[in-house]
């Protein structure tokens, strides 16, 4: 359905209107993400990261500019095309958003039902993907019976169920303990390598970026202030946000913390 994913954002603006007052959240985003990238986006709270990925699957409609995936301009898709397009973009939410009325199995089956797969296909695919994210034993549990990390795995399984071309992840690993976080990141890397899945990772953690991403962008107040390979930016950060992030990160990781003199 989707051509080779190549994500391109050109002069993307997003404004919100609250009581006729205008809030510009994205201010001319230009971004290119290659097929097979694991692309990290960092930035302070409120920088517009979530809004940015919500524009990519058109949960938000951009005010101006263009977003292209392959040869498709997503704001020109018809309703039908949009549905098919979204079926091929998995998204993992920070707050899981699992359905309480369905078991883990039912939740992971949801995108497959939407894609009108047969019962047999659904059965097979769900079992396979639950195995992959290591919660096969929780198949018949309801979300109310799962820990945060297990819910996140179920969310990841759901996002991957329909073999998406692109995976959007909004702080998907922040609910996990460090060990699970690593194993989920490794899982994503693995799928990326095997299937060429393109991944966009939003995170506050530079560890996550360093561990998983090849390219990254730094978002500051709705503007991309820096983008490039992870290596480049870590070695030679140019923007204030990147510098602060990297400084705090290294300071914390070597525990340079003197009593009464907090950084």
């Amino acid at each position, binding site marked *: 359905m989707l051509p080779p994913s190549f994500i391109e954002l050109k002069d993307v603006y997003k404004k919100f209107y609250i009581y006729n007052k205008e809030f510009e959240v994205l201010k001319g985003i230009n971004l290119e993400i290659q097929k097979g990238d694991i692309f990290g986006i960092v930035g302070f709270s409120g920088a517009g990261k979530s809004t940015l990925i919500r524009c990519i699957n058109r*949960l938000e409609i951009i005010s101006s500019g263009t977003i292209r995936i392959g040869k498709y301009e997503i704001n020109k898709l018809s309703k039908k095309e949009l*549905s098919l*397009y*979204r079926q091929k973009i998995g998204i993992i939410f920070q707050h899981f*958003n699992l*359905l*309480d009325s369905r078991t883990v199995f039912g939740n992971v089956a949801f995108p497959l039902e*939407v894609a009108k797969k047969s019962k047999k296909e659904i059965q097979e695919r769900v079992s396979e993907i639950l195995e992959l994210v290591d919660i096969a034993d929780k198949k018949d549990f*309801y979300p109310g019976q799962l820990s945060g990390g297990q819910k996140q795995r179920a969310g990841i399984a*759901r996002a991957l169920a329909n073999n998406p071309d692109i995976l959007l992840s909004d702080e998907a690993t922040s609910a996990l303990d460090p060990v699970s976080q690593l194993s989920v990141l490794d899982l994503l890397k693995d799928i990326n390598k095997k299937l060429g899945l393109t991944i966009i990772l939003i995170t506050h953690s530079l560890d996550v970026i360093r561990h998983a991403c090849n390219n990254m962008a730094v978002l500051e107040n709705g503007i991309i202030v820096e983008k490039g390979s992870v290596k480049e930016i870590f070695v030679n950060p140019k923007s204030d946000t990147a510098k602060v992030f990297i400084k705090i990160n290294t300071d914390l990781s070597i525990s340079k913390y003197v009593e009464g003199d907090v950084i």
Partner: protein
Amino acid sequence: MTDLLLKAFTKEVWDIIIPAIWETVYMTIVSTTITTFFGLLFGIVLLITDKHGLHPIPLFNKVFGSIINAVLSLPSMVVIILALPIAKLIVGITYGPKACIISLTVVCIPIFSRLVENSILEVSKGKIEAAKAMGASNIDIIFKVMLPEALPTLIRNFVVLTITLISITAIAGSFGAGGLGDIAVRYGYHRFRSDILIAAVLVLLVSVNLLQLFGALLARKILKKRHLI
């Protein structure tokens, strides 16, 4: 007083009460079924045509919402009278159980529509958004997300509806609809037959409480199964 209570359990009284029970049961079941159907339909329509709904049609939503509100704001008695011409149109007569059922549904559909709307509004925006993001159609979202997620609240509100219907049959009773309410008014009030009044009230009390209990248990059971309580 005990005398009166005892008299309320004599055969003579129950020969009058039992047919009335069946009339009430019949009217309640039929009108509940019709009201449930239209209430769900209208509630969902109200919800999705809202400015922020799945399929916004703001102008239609305003008009439709105002009509519902208008019917809601009138006393049940007035609505029943106003609904009589509709009853005539549909069943040909303006009295008796069939006409009464029509009036009852006209009173209760707006109530249930709002109850349905509010129940579904409680489903978190995030869940609906997640379904959208997976490419779900509006129909998918209604039937696979909204209704199943809201089910426990819907059941509770369904019980509220049934109880409201039972109590309104009493008012409609005055229009020759029959049923327990009719008996209570006709014998108890007009003919000072307190024994019959007491028997009718007892039956109403017990059935309403049983319904309430049953609904609460069912809702609890679902919540328990989902491990939400």
